[in-house]
């Protein structure tokens, strides 16, 4: 029965590898093929989430190096989120990616990355997670450099180097855990063996820090976020949306697994690593917002915004407090949806009008009402104005910080969050304000209706309405997340 879990992983990988053979040079056939694979696979993913807690092992090289596929509540959470977002971005990409012959390779790797992301969600031990983490790095690379320009190639190498470096840091922690743990299977409460560890406890916080920052590379933690502003503006918008909306969340999953399922709360709480990471994440929150505020290039501004927002999540995790954890996980969902919507609407604008700087967007609201309305909706949610989603998650992170074992830093954190929210408003509100109210001197005559096709607008509208809906009715989600924090014992 549990072997069914392999389907959502293997189906897109196989389908992606076979794509050039199946579709030939026919774009319509390509769209039908990709759409059916993605729809089918999202169905399988949701069905897998519906299975009870189960799992299996394969390819057992050693007790540590083996493929362990397993589903539990945390996996369900990320599985449904990622597969849902992936489905929406798929249709958007059909409208966005040009029919220039390179689209085949884009969609082939698009599918294969989907499989790797599913694999990361369903991994049951450190090796499997590490394997799929590296696979995501490699399989998503072609989407980053889709344009093939020398600048994109350079940015792609930067992305690869940062990712490999981050993975290497995580690998160090992995080896450490393999040596000093009972097992490397993810176990709520941690797997470290105090007897084997005797005498080497001093290394623990350091190793934990390495793992957190290493996996944090894809969640844009300082000092490893420099690849983000370099590569996102050069990547196609749907790819940037997937990175920001889904891949960064896989990094969060990896960090949650490391923190609560490998090291365990008891090891981390009160250690210098926790203090250091609180400071680092707050620093990243502030830095990201400031950089976004200063940035004039539209998609780079959104990239910096992701840097800041992802560190909200990491801050919420490292506080090791149920309230903050709830906030962090809610923010995973909301930011996933919101940032996907933002990148997709930015993509709609750039795709149709070629405008990529924020000061070029005056009056664009009249030309592309749907895209800009969705952008506005998502922006408001990201700033955190009730009743949208962003408010609920940030509220819980802030209150969790004050209730945590570091109340002073928690207070500072709440202040930083507030300042950052103001900055967020500063860098997002100006965009849609200018777009809808270009000022008295603006001539509407030059504007022509530039709305994108249905393939691009419908996913946008769905995402925008989700931010509102989930913000107003987060009850079921909160209950589910509280269930997870009860399992991991914080």
């Amino acid at each position: 029965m549990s072997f069914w879990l392999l389907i959502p992983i293997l189906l897109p990988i196989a389908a992606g590898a076979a794509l050039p053979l199946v579709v030939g040079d026919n774009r319509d056939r390509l769209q039908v093929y990709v759409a059916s694979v993605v729809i089918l696979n999202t169905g399988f993913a949701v069905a897998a989430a519906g299975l009870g807690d189960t799992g299996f092992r394969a390819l057992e090289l050693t007790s540590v190096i083996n493929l362990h596929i397993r589903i539990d509540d945390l996996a369900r959470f990320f599985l449904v989120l990622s597969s849902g977002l992936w489905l929406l971005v798929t249709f958007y990409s059909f409208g966005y990616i040009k029919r220039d012959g390179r689209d085949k390779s884009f969609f082939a790797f698009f599918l294969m990355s989907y499989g790797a992301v599913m694999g990361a969600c369903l991994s049951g031990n450190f090796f499997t997670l590490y394997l799929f983490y590296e696979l995501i790095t490699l399989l998503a690379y072609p989407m980053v450099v889709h344009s093939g320009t020398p600048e994109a190639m350079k940015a792609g190498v930067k992305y690869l180097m940062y990712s490999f470096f981050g993975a290497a840091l995580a690998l160090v922690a992995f080896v450490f855990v393999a040596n000093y743990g009972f097992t490397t299977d993810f176990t709520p409460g941690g797997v470290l063996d105090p007897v084997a560890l005797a005498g080497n406890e001093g290394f623990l916080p350091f190793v934990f820090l390495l793992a957190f920052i290493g996996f944090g590379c894809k969640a844009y933690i300082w000092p490893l976020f420099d690849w983000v502003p370099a590569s996102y503006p050069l990547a196609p918008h749907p790819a940037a949306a997937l990175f920001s909306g889904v891949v960064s969340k896989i990094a969060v999953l990896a960090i949650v697994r490391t923190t609560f399922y490998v090291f365990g709360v008891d090891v981390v709480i009160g250690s210098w690593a926790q203090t250091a990471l609180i400071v680092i994440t707050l620093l990243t929150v502030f830095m990201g917002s400031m950089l976004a505020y200063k940035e004039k290039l539209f998609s780079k501004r959104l990239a910096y915004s992701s840097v800041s927002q992802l560190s909200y999540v990491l801050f919420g995790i490292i506080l090791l407090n149920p309230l903050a954890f709830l906030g962090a996980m809610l923010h995973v969902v909301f930011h996933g949806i919101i940032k996907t919507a933002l990148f997709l609407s930015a993509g709609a604008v750039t795709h149709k009008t070629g405008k990529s700087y924020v000061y070029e967007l005056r009056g664009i609201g009249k030309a592309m009402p749907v895209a800009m309305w969705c952008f506005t909706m998502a922006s408001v949610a990201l700033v955190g104005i009730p009743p949208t989603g962003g408010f609920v998650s940030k509220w819980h992170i802030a209150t969790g910080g004050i209730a945590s074992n570091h109340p002073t830093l928690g207070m500072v954190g709440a202040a930083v969050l507030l300042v950052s929210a103001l900055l967020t408003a500063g860098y997002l509100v100006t965009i849609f304000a200018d777009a809808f109210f270009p000022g008295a001197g603006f001539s509407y005559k030059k504007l022509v209706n530039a709305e994108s096709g249905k393939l691009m607008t419908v996913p946008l509208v769905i995402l925008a309405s989700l931010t509102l809906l989930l913000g107003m009715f987060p009850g079921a989600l909160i209950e589910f997340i509280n269930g997870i924090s009860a399992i991991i014992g914080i």
Partner: protein
Amino acid sequence: MLPIVIMLTLFAAAGVIFVIKVNVIAKRLAIAAHVLALALSALMLAVTADEPISVILGTEPWNFYVLVTPLDAFMVSLFIGVSLFILWASVTMIDHDIEQARIPMYYALMCVLIATLCGVVVFENFFNVFLLVEASSFAAAGTVVIKNKPENMRAGLKYISLSILGSSFILMGIIILYFITDSLSITGIYASLSTNFTDNEDSVRNALIFITLGTALKSALFPLHIWLPDAHGTAPSPSSAALSALVLKAYIFLYVKILYKAIGAEILLNDEIMLLTLFLVMVTGAVAMIAGSIFALMQSDIKRMIAYSSVAQIGYIFMGIGMGTRLGLFAAIFHILTHAVTKALLFLAAGSIIEQTHNRTISKMGGLGSQMRITMLLFTVGSLSMIGIPLFIGFNSKWFYAVGIIDSHNYWLLGVLALSSLLNAAYYLPIVLRAFFGKSDTEDFLPRQSLECPMRALMPIICLAFLIVALALLGGPVNSYIYMGIDSIW
């Protein structure tokens, strides 16, 4: 008699080829002899797992003494197996590299080379071993100069001179051991040292230092690698593959045998000076890992780059040996396997790229992925394995090293390991990425047609790629065989 039959098979094939001098017969005979030898060595693997094979003719010290332990049998199978793939690839590749009249000579030299390398591994008497070490050096140099170009002559001369210098150092060490112990066989030296080591401490230490220096020179441990890039860079590609994948390893393996079988772990690991020697070997290995990669990064010629990468990989192996622990030694032996299959694949793939495009310059390989899709995919497999991505055997190696490092408490080496794999990525990935995602810069003068080698030429490389993945996923029995082998000599 099994090991002797194996060697005689290869020698006999070489002799017949040398006499007949017909290209077609040379190819077939060399490959047939290798297939037979491989079958016999597989049998030997099974036999030695139960009991070592021993053949003695004459009396000590000037006798003829073969002793095959599981580890030796493993090395013999590795040599013959990889050499079979290389010869198979030679069938199509060597014709482009060397004159028709010299082709039988090439096959004869390869057979002699592999036979002598096997001899270095299986002989127990240093008198025999030394003869074979010298013979193998000449055969190896022969495969370099067979191309008959001035730079090959220069490289070959440099290679053979330094190689003989290295052998002389080893000979010094052996002579010192002979004077102390009155024995030339490894078992004899071990037995004698266990009683009279305390009277001859300094002499044994000196012997070890001489042997270490000699091995470092013959196996190109940085900074004594100066001959390697020239020899491996100019040799015909299949020869480069054999030199890099196999020849270097035989002397390293001899060194391991001297350390743990002749001197023995009890003496070696309880003597301060010898431990210091080992420590220096480890540190030099670590330096080589970084330095070799940095040199590789600076190369513009693909074969010289791969050659410098060997310098780094040899550093890995010496580092593992220098740890002086079982896990370190295991990692080193496993890396011999990893490097043998991976480097053979890389050299052969590079060889077919050069053969088809007549271009050795890395910067001119943009867009090659569309012209030589399969070859570049195979090169990608080799690159990913070198970087240490899971699913490829390079990861297993990296993993075993990391475990060995933690076990021996040299934590700083984890940093070296991480940095080194990042550097590997920095010089291997640009080739792959430029080929697949970069714009072609050869478009102007090369027709955009497929430059792929015929399938029968690619088959051996494809098999090596499968081997790299299969050993990574299903290599459990191989691992336990190596463990058993190490236990039997420790």
